[in-house]
């Protein structure tokens, strides 16, 4: 009697099943034609090029704005963009740009010399009325600018306080993308969420944590784009991003987890693109104190780490082995003669014995993740094991990214012997100049956290920066790379290859060595 079940069985569940069936009636999984949906790795921080530091945000902005110059397709060499031509004075300090006279910002205001002046003074001049719409973390890219003047309606003259060769390639970087002064004046602090530029796509809508939509700019000076619109969706979880790609919810995704690349490559429904970029993953070695004050120990580390295995097994082929401080993506400045340190544990043991540091105890800073850090924890453990193999006792200390930077940037002295680090740059000058010079010690505002100092390297870097002749610069950089390779202030580990997966419907897409995502030419009929 008591057992008589008085309730309808599984009422809730069957109701739910009905509801699901009703709601799931033909779901359009495919994205509409001529609209490209891009899976981004995170929500953008801002769409103000003067404020942004993350590659994730650059990917959106490169399609909404233009700079005076840009990188030519498939290279890291500059070509005209909003400036149709330019002259550089013989002493390398005065740059005069002739601007295109047929360009308007998306908000309708005219692009002219005053707009360019506005953009740079806003970042650089503390007295500028819109300087308080910052902060502008990458303004130092343009610190060498002494003055910027409108020398005509469509002519701008930059005067630098000293010759500074990376100036042109810095102009091609997102920080050099020109914003609409009218839009900044209208939106003030909120310009970053109401962007207006001159690019191939114009901003339509930003819904927090859901999407950024940009539509084609039919009047684009370089030809209207083939797509009608681009939708950028932030999908932070890599597995979810892959699932969206497989379900047809996005057309293009970047930073595909190594595990999934092979799966997409085998499937004719998808195309996988790969492109080596200006990225270096390395270990900073503390050259001021402890075992790594000895050059033989630093070389020993470089021999002891099995970089091939790191790149093949942990990074599953998404990177190549690095040889020196400048990534090969900077073709013109890269020293082809440089070979990576081979994996040679015997040679490492010899060097360690010569230096008298057998069984040395080392502290190794590892981060949990961070911009360009790839797979830092497994890489850290693999390096620890390689070093244990040659008799070094490495203890790892792991920090969350921001904390990690707070520990590493002020210098390793008194704290650690080695630390992971990765940089992505736009000019061969940037990384060595900021992180390998004697004048770039942490207490001088630089990033030389391992305190490497070699007057020869200092001299070469200074000269390269002052030269306006690219061939001469290339020669100096190559010389510098050979010296740094031999001195081994870092363990050179990997150069990351950026990857992307697109659905078969996407045409004319290619990755750029700059790591920017350029969609002007892309179509999706």
């Amino acid at each position, binding site marked *: 009697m008591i057992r008589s079940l008085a309730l309808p069985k599984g*009422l809730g569940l069957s109701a739910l099943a009905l*509801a*699901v069936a009703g709601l799931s009636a033909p*779901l359009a999984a495919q994205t509409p034609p001529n609209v490209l949906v891009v899976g981004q790795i995170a929500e953008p921080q801002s769409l103000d090029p003067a404020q942004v530091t993350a590659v994730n945000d650059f990917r959106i902005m490169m399609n909404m704005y233009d700079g005076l110059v840009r990188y030519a397709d498939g290279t890291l060499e500059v070509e005209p963009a909003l400036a149709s031509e330019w002259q550089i004075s013989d002493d390398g300090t005065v740059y005069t740009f002739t601007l295109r006279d047929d360009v308007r910002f998306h908000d309708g205001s005219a692009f002219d010399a005053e707009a360019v002046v506005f953009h740079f003074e806003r970042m650089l001049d503390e007295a500028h009325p819109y300087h308080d719409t910052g902060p502008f973390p990458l303004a130092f890219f343009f610190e060498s600018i002494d003055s910027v003047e409108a020398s005509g309606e469509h002519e701008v003259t930059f005067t630098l306080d000293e010759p500074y060769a990376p100036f042109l390639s810095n102009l091609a970087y997102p920080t050099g993308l020109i914003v609409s002064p009218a839009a900044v004046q209208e939106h003030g602090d*909120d310009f970053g969420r109401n962007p207006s530029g001159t690019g191939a796509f114009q901003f339509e809508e930003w819904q927090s944590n859901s999407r950024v939509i940009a539509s084609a700019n039919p009047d684009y000076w370089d030809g209207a784009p083939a797509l009608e619109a681009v939708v950028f969706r932030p999908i932070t979880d890599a597995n979810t991003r892959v699932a969206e790609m497989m379900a047809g919810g996005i057309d293009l995704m970047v930073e595909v987890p190594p595990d999934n690349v092979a799966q997409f490559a085998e499937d004719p429904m998808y195309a996988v693109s790969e492109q080596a970029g200006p990225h270096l993953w390395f270990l900073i070695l503390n050259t001021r104190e402890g075992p790594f004050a000895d050059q033989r120990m630093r070389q020993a580390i470089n021999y002891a780490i099995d970089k091939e295995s790191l790149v093949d097994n942990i990074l599953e082929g998404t990177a190549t082995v690095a040889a020196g401080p400048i990534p090969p993506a900077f073709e013109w400045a890269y020293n082809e003669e440089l070979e990576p340190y081979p994996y040679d544990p015997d040679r490492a043991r010899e060097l360690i014995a010569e230096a008298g540091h057998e069984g040395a105890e080392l502290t190794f800073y590892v981060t949990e993740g961070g911009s360009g850090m790839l797979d830092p924890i497994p890489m850290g453990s693999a390096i620890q094991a390689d070093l244990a193999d040659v008799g070094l006792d490495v203890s790892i200390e792991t920090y969350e990214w*921001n*904390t990690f930077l707070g520990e590493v940037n002020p210098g390793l002295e008194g704290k650690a012997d080695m630390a992971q680090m990765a940089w992505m740059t736009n000019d061969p000058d940037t990384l060595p100049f900021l992180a390998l010079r004697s004048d770039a010690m942490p207490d001088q505002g630089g990033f030389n956290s391992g305190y490497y100092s070699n007057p020869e390297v200092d001299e070469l870097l200074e000269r390269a920066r002052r030269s306006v002749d690219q061939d001469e610069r290339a020669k100096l950089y190559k010389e510098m790379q050979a010296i740094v390779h031999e001195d081994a202030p870092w363990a050179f580990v990997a150069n990351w290859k950026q990857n992307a997966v697109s659905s078969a419907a996407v045409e004319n897409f290619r990755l750029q060595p700059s790591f920017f995502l350029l969609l002007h030419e892309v179509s999706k009929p």
Partner: protein
Amino acid sequence: MHLYVLRRLLMTVPVLLGLTVIVFLIMSLIPGDPALAILGSYATPENLARLRADLGLDLSLPQQYWVWLTNILQGDFGRSYHLNRPVLDEVLERFGATLILAGTSLALCVVIGAAAGIVSAVRQYGWADRIITLLVLIGISVPAFWLGMLMILLFAVELRWLPVSGMYSIYGGGDLPDLLRHLVLPAIALAVVAAGVIARLTRSNMLEVLRQDYIRTARAKGLDENRVILGHAFKVALVNLIPVIGVQAGFVIGGAVYIETVFQWPGIGRMLVNAISTRDILLVQGGVLVVAASYVLFNLCADLLQYWLDPRIKA
């Protein structure tokens, strides 16, 4: 009654204040610097110092807290450093999304949990009880984010019945059916654990109540079995369940962090995780304040409901 509600509401003020002090202290104690988080790896000491001064981070801790508190009292939650947007706008927008997800999930887990618990208790040791007990055990043990991933793979990628992630379709959509389609998978994934807990409690409470004399009396009077179970037994068991449901409401909002990440639900849990990793103190404070206030409110509602259901409390 009114006095009781008023007293409970007033008591939440010191609770919330204390909470903000603790959160503020924790955020200040964990290493890492908001200015560094904004400027990124290129930050120079000079720029850091300037930005810290701009953000008011060069003030002493009590001063910083005081500034924050006096602003809050005037309705100014400040601007998120990282999102460069008023904290209140962001928090309310995101909290709304979380409420939709957590509310649906809570309703699901109460209905499913209670139904399963009742069936289980009524048919104690029968096959239905055994199956439900097994399912409940699995439900409680399975990590919600993993279940979420599996559900995505099956229902969204393989069968393509439902969307993978997000709250609305990227184009078109935006209406209620669209929202419901996006809600089904995350709401179920989030409900599973809490439903298991509620099912277990309902079962044990019901078993206890069903053994009482007055149930036998009710049955002896020849009362319809449905009325005995739902009207007499469950109503009494519910009194003990209400506070548990209040606690589960908090659990569901907390658990939403994982689910929101897996399903890219634009809720407050994911916002808080991001805000903590970017050291966005004002955003963390604002978010925690709203979540905590809602938690306190849920529990207050649960208490009031219990008060209303249980005549003994009134006496």
